[in-house]
């Protein structure tokens, strides 16, 4: 018997018109539902996320079809990916049937759904259907039985699961009834290519042809109604993520990670700095709430949330959406809470893991800009003091600016301010210049460079804070003031290459300063020294094999994707890394980012201690870091935890300096 089936068997071609009309109505309802959201999003300011659309489109297709971000977290993620592909296959299959019946047969007079193709088609769809049911069951078990902590389940979730199950199961019931009536006896070898349908058909085998006919038609219309229901309510349930989350892969920023809007302080027409109400945010900020699927992965990784601070990145996104429901004038600070807003360390773990491409961090900074620039408030008096110190002396400690270059005493450095040439400008930063522990890093860096024959120039007392902590706390004015001065000073030296020992300075000089007119190549010491090693200008001897664990700082790892070079250096120096569970892109913040290095931690438990305990748990005994903030936080954390005997922290430069030679 030939391998094909009569499409619309038992349903009749007469119903096709009403079927299309009903389907059109459902689609209109869907489109209207989406269209009504547009006005909601437009309460926010305009933002161009439509540029370079071929690139955006390619990215969206790759992410949606590939499901890579979704599957990154195995629990739930793999199930969702498989469920999605199965459902997609079923959808494509149904479309193909429709195309065949209403276009290819009557107009082109070709039948694709026959022979080997049809056999393959049947098998694939059956497997997809079974897979979808299995994966959905897995997701349901996770949500309703295992109940992971923090996963909110609402009525909507019950309805959606029920609806999807019903659609899938009625699909097989339709197939089973059809096969029982037309294939079970008539074409048994074709039936093998629809194994699940075959199983269902066998259950109905005893019934009469009339009964099977009735069952088939009933299930067919039931399945049809459920699908139409699915389509029409889509925009009003969590299922809207099919559109909005996919769209967010299109709308995701193309700028480098961590790029912030640089306020034009010359513009005298600006009356509101930062975000106080919904109207002060962009449409994308409101859209993110619709793209959010409440998967809570951001919350699970947020160092503030995990240490019981009032911040949840997921709630932040959703609260903005809720506020927007109440109108564009809705105040945000009261809804979200100043304490939550100040708790963020801008570590980007939330954005890194978010499968919906939501942008959490910049919203926090916009809210902070309002708090700082419009209300003049700070997370604490100590931060205010630090801000004043930055204004007066160009460093948050309040130490005399004239002493900024004192760390270099006795070292071979060039004061480039006086026009002397150098190979690189070493932008030391505030901590390396003034903090006792971090001065060692600065001194080591210079010695390492000298060993490689590199002439190091410094600005000394002409250097000021790069402004990053101020910027991340919302003080755009103070940041730009400091930045403009630094940029002028740096440009005047004529230097062509800057190297820093601080990832925060590194990010700020290489990316943020470009908006303010600096276009000089800037590197972090890890990639710079690694390059010296690769070029043969620096030689390291392996020495005794040592164990350590390595902390990827947020601003080097997640922000700049620099994960392998520091490890290469450690290995070249003869050190062996016992990785922590949360390493690489999943690295857990030390707690000092987002300007919080200037603030006291008064809520919840200590973020730095949490990380210290993770490091101590590796048993490696030595924790290696690459950032002055991390080094400071970890030294502090070791003293205030139980790990004083079991863990020491070293900067990467301290490892390298001991192994120069060979």
């Amino acid at each position, binding site marked *: 018997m030939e391998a094909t089936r009569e499409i619309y068997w038992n349903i009749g071609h007469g119903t096709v018109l009403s079927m299309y009309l009903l389907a059109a109505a459902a689609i209109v309802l869907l489109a209207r539902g989406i269209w009504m959201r547009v006005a909601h999003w437009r309460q926010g300011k305009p933002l161009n996320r439509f540029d370079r659309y071929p690139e955006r489109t390619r990215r969206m297709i790759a992410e949606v079809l590939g499901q890579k971000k979704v599957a990154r977290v195995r629990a739930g993620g793999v199930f969702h990916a498989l469920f999605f592909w199965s459902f997609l296959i079923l959808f494509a299959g149904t479309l193909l049937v429709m195309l065949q019946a209403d276009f290819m047969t009557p107009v082109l007079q070709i039948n694709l759904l026959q022979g080997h193709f049809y056999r393959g088609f049947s098998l694939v769809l059956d497997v997809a259907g079974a897979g979808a049911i299995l994966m959905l069951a897995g997701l349901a078990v996770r949500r309703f039985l295992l109940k992971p902590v923090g996963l909110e389940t609402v009525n909507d979730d019950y309805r959606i699961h029920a609806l999807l199950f019903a659609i899938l199961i009625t699909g097989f019931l339709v197939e089973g009834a059809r096969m029982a009536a037309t294939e079970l006896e008539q074409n048994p070898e074709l039936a093998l290519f629809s194994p699940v349908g075959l199983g269902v058909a066998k259950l109905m085998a005893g019934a009469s042809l009339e009964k099977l006919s009735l069952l088939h038609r009933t299930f067919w219309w039931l399945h049809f109604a459920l699908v139409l229901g699915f389509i029409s309510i889509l925009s009003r349930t969590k299922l809207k993520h099919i559109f909005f989350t996919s769209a967010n892969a299109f709308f995701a920023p193309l700028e480098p990670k961590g790029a912030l809007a640089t306020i034009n302080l010359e513009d005298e027409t600006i009356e509101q700095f930062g975000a106080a109400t919904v109207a002060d945010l962009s449409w994308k900020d409101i859209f993110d709430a619709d793209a959010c699927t409440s998967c809570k992965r951001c919350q699970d990784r947020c160092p503030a949330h995990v240490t019981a601070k009032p911040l949840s990145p997921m709630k932040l996104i959703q609260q903005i959406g809720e506020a927007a429901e109440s109108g564009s004038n809705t105040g945000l600070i009261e809804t979200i809470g100043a304490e939550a807003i100040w708790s963020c360390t801008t570590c980007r773990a939330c954005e890194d893991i978010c499968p919906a491409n939501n942008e959490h961090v910049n919203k926090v900074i916009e809210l902070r800009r309002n708090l700082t620039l419009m209300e003049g408030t700070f997370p604490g008096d100590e931060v205010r003091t630090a801000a004043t110190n930055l*204004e007066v002396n160009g460093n948050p400690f309040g130490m*005399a*600016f004239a002493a900024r270059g004192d760390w270099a005493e006795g070292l071979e450095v060039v004061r480039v301010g006086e026009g002397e040439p150098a190979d690189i400008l070493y932008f030391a930063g505030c901590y390396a210049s003034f903090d006792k522990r971090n001065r060692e890093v600065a001194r080591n860096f210079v010695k390492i460079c000298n060993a490689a024959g590199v002439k190091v120039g410094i600005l000394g007392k002409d250097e000021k804070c790069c402004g990053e902590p101020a910027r991340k706390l919302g003080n755009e004015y103070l940041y730009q003031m400091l930045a403009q001065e630094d940029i002028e000073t740096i440009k005047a030296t004529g230097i062509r290459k800057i190297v820093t020992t601080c990832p925060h300075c590194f990010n700020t000089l290489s990316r943020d300063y470009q908006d303010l007119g600096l276009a000089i190549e800037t590197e972090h010491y890890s990639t710079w020294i690694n390059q010296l090693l690769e070029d043969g200008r620096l030689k390291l001897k392996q020495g005794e094999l040592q164990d350590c664990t390595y902390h990827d700082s947020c601003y080097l790892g997640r922000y700049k994707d620099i994960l392998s070079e520091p490890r290469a250096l450690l290995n070249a120096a003869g050190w062996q890394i016992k990785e922590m569970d949360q390493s690489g892109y999943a690295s857990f913040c030390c707690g000092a980012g987002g300007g919080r290095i200037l603030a006291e931690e008064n809520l919840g438990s200590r973020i730095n201690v949490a990380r210290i305990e993770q490091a101590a748990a590796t048993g490696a005994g030595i924790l290696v870091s690459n950032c002055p903030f991390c080094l400071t936080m970890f030294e502090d954390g070791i003293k205030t935890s139980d790990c004083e005997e079991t863990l020491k922290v070293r900067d990467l430069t301290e490892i390298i300096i001991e192994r120069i030679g060979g």
Partner: protein
Amino acid sequence: MKILVCIKQVPDMESRFKPAADGLWFNEADLAWRINEYDEYAVEQAVKLKEQLGNEPEITVLSIGPDRVVEVLKKALAMGADRAVHVQDSAPQQKGPWQIASIIANYARDKGFDLILTGMQSQDRGSAQVGVLVAEFLGFACATTLVGFSYVDGVIHAKRELEGGLKGLVDLRLPALVTCQLGLNIPRYPTLPNIMRAKKKEIETLSVTSLLTEEPLAITTQFYAPARKEGGLVLEGDLNEMAQQLVDILQEKTSVVR
């Protein structure tokens, strides 16, 4: 109501101080400058009073010195002062409090100020005299070291910080001058809109020579760092002998034991 606030630009106290070439004051190289801390309380209190009175009062802020003092004037304007007066003087550090106070009084005399606020003292010179002298020059009521200030129906109710934790309550009628002490208020951090508005406020520049009519009453003759202290003395030996030695030293060398 017309309010005058007198502010001084002082070096940041963390700076390294070295005597100037003339040996009469400190060298200004490598110094970071900021508004005198006590003067910040004065500016803040003036702005608070203005807000209390429905923004009717006009606050003038004045500073004496070279071009760099414009920065502290701008800060005061950003905090809420309405206009600024810059008395251009290339060497204010050569003038003692008598001359400084006379300059201010000469400026203020015919302006009809109801209230003048100054800091209790400056962080560099610390004379604590300018405010009081200005009040005397002008015949204003005066109270110093305020840690509390309220204004009701034309009367200032001031709370002064005295020794031993005591507070003195003083009522003054206008015109009056008060000097402000730590604890009076928490100066506001200027908001960005206020910083931008401040850029448009008037800064009037006057030459100090037009206002200087007094000769100095006291002259600085020397400015030097204190001599390095000698090393400590370590007592050794018998416990009773050491105790006696210690008592002898305390009696002879200090006024701790009588």
